[in-house]
């Protein structure tokens, strides 16, 4: 609404949602808005994501991508509108249900959120806490199968050798990969990934995104992934959603858009970026 000429093409606006009635949506956002103090960060966002979709969330820095993902995950409470994730509204479902919901929704944080004092392995194991009943302290308190799975996931992200290294001595990209491995432990139905490859080199980035994509295709899980690298977004996603200045300005099938169209979003943003 703040941008006079919207890039969004009316025909493709619900491109990713083939037949709304056919299958239950993974995620439905309706008129979603949120303010921090007097600052409106997101307004009037509507989105419907089907299971198994790989959605790339793009938009200039500060557009509200992270905030949107956090709303989905129930970390923020919307000021307006509703969120429904796997049929559950995270802001009204109650603590127990939210917790249960979250075991089904993985989240890769932009700032990783690792416990720096602990080893990579232990941080990765923490991803399984939702499926365990008791609290755990120390690697050896986790079941053997989970430990093996953690090793497998660490190997997957190329950190087998660093598995017992303290997380705060890992390189930036290594830390990011630990965070990804932790989320992989969850076997989630939806993965929300907030710039999961920002600190990774091109080949590692592609490998991580391809892993997500393959899992999404094979197991039918949904991925919503904010990405700054347009080429990557085009390579891996089924659907591209763009946010600018707190509003959804584009929602299209990936095949229907092009690198130029996406870059235009950012160019235009220069004028209005906040």
């Amino acid at each position, binding site marked *: 609404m703040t941008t006079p000429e919207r890039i969004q093409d009316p025909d493709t606006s619900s491109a990713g949602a083939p037949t709304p009635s056919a299958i239950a949506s993974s995620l439905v956002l309706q008129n979603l808005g949120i303010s*921090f*103090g007097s*600052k409106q960060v997101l307004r009037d966002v509507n989105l419907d994501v089907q299971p198994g979709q790989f959605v790339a969330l793009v938009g200039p820095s500060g557009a509200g991508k992270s905030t949107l993902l956090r709303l989905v*995950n129930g*970390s923020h409470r919307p000021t307006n509108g509703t969120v429904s994730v796997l049929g559950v509204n995270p802001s009204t479902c109650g603590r127990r249900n939210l*917790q249960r*919901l*979250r*075991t089904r*929704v*993985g*989240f890769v*944080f932009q*700032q*990783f*959120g*690792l*416990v*720096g*004092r*602990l*080893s*990579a392995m232990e941080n990765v194991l*923490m*991803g*399984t*806490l*939702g*499926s365990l009943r*008791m*609290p*755990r*302290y120390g*690697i050896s308190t986790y079941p053997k199968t989970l430990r093996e799975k953690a*090793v*497998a996931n660490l*190997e*997957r*992200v190329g950190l*087998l*050798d*660093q*598995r*017992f*290294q*303290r997380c705060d*001595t890992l390189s930036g990209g290594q830390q990011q990969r630990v*965070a990804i491995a*932790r989320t992989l*432990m*969850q076997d989630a139905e939806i993965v929300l990934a907030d710039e999961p490859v920002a600190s990774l080199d091109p*080949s*590692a980035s592609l*490998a*991580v995104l*391809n*892993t997500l994509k*393959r*899992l999404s295709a*094979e197991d039918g899980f949904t991925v919503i992934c904010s990405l700054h690298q347009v080429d990557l977004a085009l390579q891996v996603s089924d659907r591209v959603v763009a946010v600018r200045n707190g509003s959804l300005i584009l929602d299209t099938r990936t095949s229907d858009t092009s690198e130029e169209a996406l870059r235009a979003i950012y160019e235009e943003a220069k004028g209005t970026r906040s």
Partner: protein
Amino acid sequence: MSGTTRQIVEDPRTPRPGSREPRDGQRPSAPRTSPPGSKRPRVSAATLGIPLAYLAVTVFGVWWIDIRPAAVAAGFGDIARLLERMVPPTTGPVSDLLTLALETLWIAIAGTGLATIASVFLAAAASRHFTGPKLVRWLAQGIIIVTRAVPSLIFAILFVRIFGLGPLAGGLAIAVHSIGMIGKMMADVFEEQSPSPREAIASVGASRLQNFVSTTLTRALPAVTSLVIYRLDINVRASAVLGLVGAGGIGVALQTAIGSLNYRRAAGIILVIVALLLILELVAYLVQRAVAEHADEHTQSQLHVAGSTPAAPGWNRSRVLRSAAAASAVILFLYSLSQLSLNLSRLGQAWNNALALLSGFVPPVFTEEILLGIFESVIMAFTATFFGVLVGLVIAVLSTRHLVRFEPLSLALRGIVVFMRGIPDIVYALIFVAALGLGPFAGFLALSISCTALASKFFTDSLQNIDPAPLRALEATGAGRIQVFVSGVWPQFVPSFIGNSLFTSDLALRESAVLGIVGAGGIGFLLDESVATLHYQQTAGILIGLIVVVVALESVARWARRKVI
């Protein structure tokens, strides 16, 4: 890492470690041997050893003190009879009490403020990050330890010789003794900070002092204000020491009321003190909210509004409030300093007076009694700390947001803890004496209550300042609160948990004067006796003993923190 990333592409679900042939033939060492990462981390001796040591001492202490919980129950009637004599509280003319309370508050503010200023420098020099001369660091650490180990009673008799009777000697005695605690805890706060902003500002070529002010101090501000207000709270309560320098105040009035068995008046005075402490707690709470280290939902994200030019921050309500609060703190402190009534003409003979007093301390005398007293006090302090830490941890966990997010509960707990520490040790001692008779058991219970109050305060503060990012990430995996606590909060909390537990023992050791009240001996009793009977050589022996124990505790704490930070 032969094709690990590629491997997922081929066969995601089964890791095949066997397939990892090093492609790089020239790399003789197998990737698995890269050392810092591939060694399975062992549980550090500190995290396991220190709790075990506490447990062992406690088991011994329980036997030594001869703890029989049933006896407490048997004494309920006597406790009730004693409590009856405390109600209804009488205050006399409230205005008199308030005057006394204010007098005390001024001296406490002056002393705490002076200690804070000195502590900033000492803590900066004593912290592990200090890069200057080793000697300066040792000196700073030494001052912090000695001022903490030596009770304010000793500073009081020294300063009264130098500065004469009156609030100045009292304020300084409070100040010097407070340095030991404020300085130590500040240094701990500095050490626990993440190094990255410090590195970043060092990289712009800032001097150490600039860097310290801009990154270390600003980040420590929330923790430091809370710590300073807590010390102010302690100093108000401990103001009975002002009686030794002729400065009067509410602590002396309380001591006199208890000494003359006028418990109803004592109860009235305690209520006034508790009210004062509640106000301090409220101030601490508001300041915490205003200067929070980590943002949460309530944090004001816009620190300033736009001003007349883009480069000038404008004034809005919150900035006015912040500035007004800071200015009032400074004005209060300056005013309190003016209340100390420094008499310069006295200073001429100060040196001789002090020397005359100090020469009485040499040579120090050690007796078997002193050793036994220290032993007794250490055992009691450790045993009481053990129980105090357990209960204190529960209180702290319940009054922070990590496990229970029920605001009224945490407020109620904070209030209860304030009330608990508003009641002086001697009252607890009397209550337990009535129930159990004289002896170490009563002393142990009184000491456990002080330890609980101390530990819950320390733990609450450090739990509140934990970096929330990993916790949010863990919550996002669907982990329950207890799981988040154990996996995310606890590892971050361990360094300060161990440090603060040891520090609680350290403080308990000096609070063990309460043991004398119940006939349980201990070093506090001997110290008071030696001072009262002017056996200063013995006093010196006791002080040296105390310093040795405190240095030992501090070394263990430092070692443990190095291991676990």
